[in-house]
């Protein structure tokens, strides 16, 4: 039993959510992180504000942007043809989420971004996809690039009375993708992830390329790939991109899964595997 007393609310609108939020409340999305944390009394909110009844699990495509409600689960992503078509990287990511079908049915993308855990899959993948968070608060609704939300491990720029209601991202259907994560065993959290997107022009040269690493620092690490733009993706470009990845790492993350020097060591191979996957798929 959760040791501390709390009030439970499940407002039926975004306005209702915002009105219920204050310094002593905690948002509840899928619950896979918040509920056990409350059980251990590491989080002791006076009020739990559940997003489930606010209608935030829609998936749609608007002007070739993929729009995902914050309460979409990994299972929702896997079941969506729009996700498969417009952001296939997300499908690959969701397939490999630790915890089996039970977790995929419950854990949400909004919860994962808001929790800002370094070793979660979603933050770095969303940064790679150039996702923008739709944030509602007392002053109204505004949009923030997901890359700008993270301040550190478990810390975001969101105020106590703000809520992520969804995400929007440009179509990446003309890009190939690579997604790789390193973990110790089937039930382990990821130690390091790499998400990459690659788009070639008609002449077969890199027109757009991105690589974002998760788990290796407190917040998703975006690697500068401008050096390979305008060039065809060959071995030399692959090496250059991997070199950029290791050079970008400045403060490797340490937790119970792995010390920072381990993460620093695995950064290059994890990046290389993801890039190789995206490179290989350009032939399709």
């Amino acid at each position, binding site marked *: *039993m959760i040791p501390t007393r709390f009030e*439970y609310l499940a407002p039926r609108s975004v306005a209702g959510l915002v009105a219920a939020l204050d310094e002593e409340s905690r948002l*509840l999305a899928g619950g896979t992180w918040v*509920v056990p944390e409350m*059980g251990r009394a590491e989080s002791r909110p006076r009020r*739990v504000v559940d997003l*489930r009844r606010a209608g935030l699990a829609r998936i749609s495509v608007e002007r070739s942007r993929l729009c995902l409600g914050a309460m979409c689960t990994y299972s929702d992503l896997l079941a969506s043809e729009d996700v498969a078509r417009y952001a296939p990287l997300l499908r690959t990511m969701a397939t490999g989420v630790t915890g089996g*079908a*039970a977790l995929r049915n419950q854990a949400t993308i909004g919860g994962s971004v808001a929790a800002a855990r370094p070793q979660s899959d979603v933050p770095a993948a969303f940064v790679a996809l150039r996702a923008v968070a739709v944030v509602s608060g007392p002053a109204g609704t505004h949009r923030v690039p997901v890359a700008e939300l993270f301040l550190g491990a478990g810390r975001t720029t969101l105020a106590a009375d703000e809520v992520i209601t969804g995400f929007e991202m440009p179509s990446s259907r003309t890009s190939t993708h690579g997604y790789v994560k390193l973990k110790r065993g089937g*039930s382990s959290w990821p130690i390091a992830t790499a998400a990459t997107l690659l788009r070639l022009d008609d002449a077969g040269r890199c027109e757009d390329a991105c690589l974002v690493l998760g788990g290796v620092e407190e917040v998703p690490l975006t690697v500068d790939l401008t050096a390979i733009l305008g060039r065809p993706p060959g071995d030399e470009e692959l090496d250059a991109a991997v070199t950029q990845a290791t050079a970008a790492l400045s403060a490797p993350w340490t937790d119970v899964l792995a010390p920072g020097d381990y993460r620093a060591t695995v950064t290059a191979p994890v990046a290389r595997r993801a890039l190789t996957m995206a490179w290989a798929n350009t032939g399709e």
Partner: protein
Amino acid sequence: MDDDLTVLELTVNGNRRTATVDRRELLVEALRTRFGITGPKIGCLTGDCGACTVRLDGLITKSCLHIAVAEDRAEIETLESMSVGGLTGLQESFWDNNAFQCGYCLSGMLFSAAELLERDPKPNEDEIRQAISGNLCRCTGYDAIVTAIKRYADRGSATVEDVAQ
């Protein structure tokens, strides 16, 4: 009534029931202590082990990760729902292949396997291992569980006798 107590209505294994619960209780705790349904076990309370797995409104989930009152009026199926009128073929296959000892993991293993087989009646070994990956078993070493699911899938609607041969 105590401030922390409230009435929770659930449809559990087809029966609509109500019970007074503490609003701080987890779903698995309410099921076990207030509704007397002990198929779902309390294991890790962190979502790792799968011992508390139930179907909630049709989807398998770990009931230790839910606040009970949040699930008011939900439909819950527990391990007990599988064996009304005898064991299912999948359960028989677990029995025949020594796929459990203490039984703690069975809610997770059986619901995960059933969910997989609904999606894909002929999974390969990798797919089976993926499907049960959110569940811990400390008795079997997993191989017997994989074998039980594989043999059941390969036989389709095999009888006990078929699987045992």
